[in-house]
């Protein structure tokens, strides 16, 4: 098999889920009870036997550093290859886009033994079959392969997706940037496969021309110069573009078929191990239709909710249609409905916090209510 380098590009993340990204980058937003977004792309890479992965961070890199550690949970603590975290070299002000980030670390690309590079964002809840993608790239003899998906998410208000125009032979004809796709439109997943040598040429040229954006300046601008093929990602994926689509994506996990599709079938999703004990259900617990991680202590009522590791829900408390993240405590007789509670929130006794499915109420990290 070709020697492949996986690149996770966190440099130009979308400005979504604002309240959840105050203290962290988008890729490390918690999802699904015990995961973070970045676990999906990492697990997809590992499943395709990619054993060297570079994570390009911008700012707020601490939560990603803490989460990834040595990479051992993803079998990336290796002598050959393994995990590389590449923070910005220039001052943040100077760091203009991913071209700069890649350029600053061009020596890393030179040194790696890989011939082929796959670049992906860090926030997609997606089970992309990377092995099939690499095979496709090889078979079509494309210079560059771009992954797209026919849009199947909730209606979008903000135009922050890019669309590809694909001809019948699977060639990419054009890329429209910053659009709000409708159902069935071909959304560019900002995932590319290309030879390392071509990547380095593109970065060098763009940098010299003062260009900043990899998709716009390296790919879109060269769409007629190179043979660019489109790979249709038909596997499981949930588009997340707003707080309510984030809420809905979590709620989708209350369907056993979805749980199986994402976490049991094909390959597992790896994440940082926390060594929490099994969850304890008390005498008065009433838990139904929920997805619950370990280390929780549940004395109250939980319905249609996603409960992360180490959450405490005390007697008389009611949690409905909500997402409650790590180590949040909901005290006696408090009520949460259509709420997204970030980590370590404290909801004190008798407090009632209610949102709606289209406007879930977000409680910020460490907030005391």
């Amino acid at each position, binding site marked *: 098999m070709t020697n492949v380098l996986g690149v996770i590009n966190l440099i130009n993340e979308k400005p979504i889920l604002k309240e959840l990204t105050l203290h962290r980058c988008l890729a490390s937003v918690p999802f699904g009870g015990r995961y973070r977004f970045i676990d999906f792309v990492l697990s997809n890479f590992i499943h395709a036997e990619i054993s060297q992965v570079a994570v390009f961070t911008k700012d707020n890199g601490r939560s990603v550093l803490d989460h990834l550690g040595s990479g051992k*949970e993803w079998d990336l603590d290796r002598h050959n290859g393994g995990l590389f975290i590449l923070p910005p070299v220039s001052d943040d002000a100077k760091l203009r886009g991913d071209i700069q980030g890649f350029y600053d670390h061009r020596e890393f690309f030179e040194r790696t033994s890989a011939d082929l590079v796959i670049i992906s964002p860090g926030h997609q809840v997606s089970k992309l079959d990377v092995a099939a993608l690499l095979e496709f790239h090889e078979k079509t003899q494309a210079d560059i392969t771009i992954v797209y998906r026919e849009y199947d998410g909730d209606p979008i208000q903000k135009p922050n997706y890019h669309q590809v125009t694909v001809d019948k032979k699977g060639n990419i004809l054009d890329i429209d940037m910053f659009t709000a796709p409708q159902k069935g439109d071909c959304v560019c997943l900002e995932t590319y496969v290309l030879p390392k040598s071509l990547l380095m040429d593109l970065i060098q040229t763009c940098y010299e021309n003062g260009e900043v954006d990899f998709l716009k300046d390296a790919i879109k601008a060269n769409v007629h110069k190179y043979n660019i093929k489109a790979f249709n990602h038909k596997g499981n994926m949930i588009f997340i573009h707003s707080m309510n689509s984030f809420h809905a994506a979590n709620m989708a996990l209350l369907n*056993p078929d979805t*749980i199986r599709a994402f976490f049991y079938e094909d390959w597992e999703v*790896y994440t940082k191990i926390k*060594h929490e004990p*099994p969850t304890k259900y008390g005498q*008065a617990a009433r838990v139904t239709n929920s*997805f*619950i991680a370990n280390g929780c202590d549940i004395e109250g009522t939980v319905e249609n909710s996603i409960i992360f590791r180490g959450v405490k829900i005390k007697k008389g408390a009611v949690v409905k249609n909500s997402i409650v993240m790590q180590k949040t405590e909901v005290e006696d007789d408090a009520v949460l409905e259509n709420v997204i509670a970030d980590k370590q929130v404290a909801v004190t006794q008798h407090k009632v916090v209610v949102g709606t499915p289209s406007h879930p109420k977000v409680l910020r990290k460490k907030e005391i209510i």
Partner: protein
Amino acid sequence: MAMLLAGGQGTRLGDLTSQLAKPAVPFGGKYRIIDFSLSNCMHSGIDTVGVLTQYEPHILNSYVGNGRAWDLDRNYGGAAVLPPYVGKDGGKWYKGTANAVYQNIHYIDHYNPEFVLILSGDHIYKMDYRKLLKYHIEKGAQVSIAVIEVPWQEAGRFGIMVTNSEGKIVEFEEKPQFPKSNLASMGVYLFNWKLLRQYLVQDEKNSGSSNDFGKDIIPKMLKDKNKIYAYQFSGYWKDVGTVQSFWEAHMDLLEDEPAFELDDPDWRIFTGDANHPPQYIAPEANIKNSLINEGSWIYGNICHSVISHIVYVGKNSFIKDSVIMPNVTIGNNVTIEHAIIASNTIIESGKKIAPLKANEVRLYSCPQTMEETDIKEVL
């Protein structure tokens, strides 16, 4: 450094150990029995642990591996799995606990420790071995044995220490019919290595010896008037060597204020195999007073029970006062009471599993290899 005796078969656990060494038996919904001793080593700052294996060692050997889960993957020391081996004079199975350590004298000599801690891998407890060492040094002891007070009526099941007022052991009785004390050995021994080495060599030459710490080494050391002290441990300690005590230890975890708290941020129990998705609790599920691990699917009713990872409980099933071990699939309309369901068991819909006699615990297993396709079909 510590030597952990993990070679025992554990015959009294019946089918739970038919293909598995006792220390590797799953416990507490998520752990294996050996995790408790290894986590104790980790929290006590012991960074060199030899794990002596013999009976059905495959799972145990790969499970302990390089000790990564317990921070025992060290440049110097760390975890070493020590099965019997062959040298230039041939090789032998471990004949007894003392012989197992004897055969690894070179391993211990390599680290040249002043003290060696001998542990058994089949007890549930949290113990800071540093306190034992401090006591050992303060008393100027040559051997210290950790003891715990047990109820008088149960004292006959244990190795019993009779001590003087200073804690010095004057008499040792293995499973006495009429115990003179209720201080039971916890199977935790701290030896001055030079002395232990001498006795191990001596004991090996004695063809009449059963090469066992409790039966041979300790009585001989006592007879020779060595300074052996009892370190009294107060805390939760449970031997889980029988089906009944194994079940009881699980029920202890379900107390409102359990004497043994798994959820202790200062003394986490670490385990090797921990990547499972969150547990799915279906709309029709009902769970009271239970411990449930990740990777399980609950559609039925769970009351006062411990459910491990990759367990599926079907609709209208009712599980009470029971322990469900990993990889168990339970169909619909099943009733399970007062039972332990062994790993990899499939229980078909409509079945009822309860003890044959009141107050007994039913150990139910069906030692078949479960095909992955079967699981998916039931799921």
